[in-house]
């Protein structure tokens, strides 16, 4: 089944649970096969501006790979990640009690039909569930908002970049300087491991869990959007330039492009704490978002679905 012919723009007559399942399935399929346009553009620009030979060879291979994946309708990378969803639910939306079950079903279906690599392993028995579901997985992040529509984002998150995510409980005295050092050191320590060029989600404040969650959520912001707060936008630019001055380069083989972008977010902090979190995203920055409106029309925001 080609997802292009699988448009759900018209008001669906499906039961809400089936509709959510279909949307979840489509989002996973779209995400692992086609990168959002902001990521593709950033990779193309990086290729044009890269000066290191090895860097150019690798960026070219990345661009060719993206093209082949779209043409052949197959996942960009064999690591189709841990399945994470972000759900922004209007308080008045229908069927919210069905969302979790529907997204679990969507994940199982995508695992066999796309296919996705089964990536959900019991940490104690080492048993792979085989269908990408398990305890807390797929993980759903919930936000309750106004209105009656539901926004669902799928973020299949690769393991290589996840393994170098970093959390630092630095002292308030170190402040922003400490934050900059922590981020830069995390990039240097990560080196070639997270499949650079990366996208960095950086968050400061809250507490350990809040910082990390906020950092990961920052990865959802498109690369062509800076933080609306000019000071934070400046910090993003400064961290971007710092990371790209390291020389790590594409795939750690040397070059100008170690990161494609840095997205900074924050929460207010405890007077005694200064949590800093860095979420790494590999170049295959796979994400897809859709809205399900109250009239059951569906709009895909990150991908063109004809």
């Amino acid at each position, binding site marked *: 089944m080609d997802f292009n012919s699988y448009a759900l723009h018209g008001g669906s007559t499906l039961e809400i649970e089936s509709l959510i399942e279909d949307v979840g399935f489509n989002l996973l399929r779209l995400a692992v096969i086609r990168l959002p346009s902001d990521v593709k553009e950033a990779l193309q620009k990086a290729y044009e501006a890269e000066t290191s*030979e*090895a860097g150019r*060879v*690798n960026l*070219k*291979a*990345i661009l*060719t*790979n993206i093209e*082949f*994946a779209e043409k*052949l309708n*197959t*996942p*960009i*990378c*064999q*690591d189709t990640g841990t399945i994470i969803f972000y759900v922004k639910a209007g308080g008045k939306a229908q069927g919210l009690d069905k969302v979790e079950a529907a997204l679990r079903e969507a994940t199982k279906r995508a695992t066999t039909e796309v*296919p996705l*690599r089964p990536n959900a392993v019991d940490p104690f028995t080492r048993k792979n569930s085989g269908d990408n579901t398990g305890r807390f997985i797929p993980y759903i992040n919930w936000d309750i908002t106004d209105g009656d529509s539901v926004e669902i984002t799928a973020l299949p998150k*690769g393991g*290589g970049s996840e393994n170098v995510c970093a959390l630092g409980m630095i002292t308030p005295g170190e402040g922003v*300087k400490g934050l*900059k*050092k922590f981020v*830069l050191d995390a990039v*240097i320590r990560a*080196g*070639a*491991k997270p*499949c650079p060029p990366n996208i960095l989600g950086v968050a400061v404040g809250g507490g350990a869990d809040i910082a990390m969650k906020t950092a990961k959520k920052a990865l959802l912001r498109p690369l062509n959007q800076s933080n609306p707060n000019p000071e934070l936008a400046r910090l993003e630019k*400064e961290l971007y330039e*710092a990371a790209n*001055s*390291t*020389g*790590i*380069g*594409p*795939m*750690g*083989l*040397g070059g100008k492009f170690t990161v494609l972008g840095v997205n900074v977010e924050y929460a207010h902090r405890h007077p005694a704490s200064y949590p800093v979190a860095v979420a790494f995203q*590999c*170049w*295959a920055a796979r994400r897809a978002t859709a809205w399900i409106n109250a009239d059951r029309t569906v709009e895909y925001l990150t991908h063109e679905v004809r």
Partner: protein
Amino acid sequence: MAVFKLQTPISDEEIRKLKVNDVLYVTGVMVTARDAAHKRALEYFKQGKALPISLEGLAVFHCGPIVRKEDDTWTVVAAGPTTSTRMDQFEDEFIRDFKVRVVIGKGGMGKRTTDAMKKYGAVYGAFTGGAAVLAAKAVKRVKALEWSDLGMPEALWIFEVEEFGPLTVAIDSHGNNLFEDVKKKVEKNTAKIYEKLGLTG
């Protein structure tokens, strides 16, 4: 930077022409092997048992592919490289015992492997992490599946490949290691970046 297209089995003489930063495409036979397969292969060698295939002059690929089986035929859907550092503890003996000429993966390998490559004549070819479709397209045929009891990702997949690449020669058989060179440059750059960010003094 030179571009090389080599056909397996590759000789010692051929492989020694390659230098770091060169680009390599491999045609011929390639075998996937991750941690478990490396471990078992070395055990077999110690016990004097033959491997399912002689690896002499071939390429070994650190990869756990996504494969599909249709009517008894395997098709490779996605076959990107996995992180090579996990195989560092086996690779020097692996190169010595089986005379593989090309080791393919991502992220680079350490000194022991670099030394073995110099001594026995082999290179490390870095394949772009995540470029799984590009890799799969170069696999023309799955010749055999061996050691399937290790599980699909860990098994030995024997591929017939055509112009598999581009591989960046990141460790050559002259003791050069591109990843180590980059690390040294990064160390040098760090002080300057600290200064620019106002972190010094």
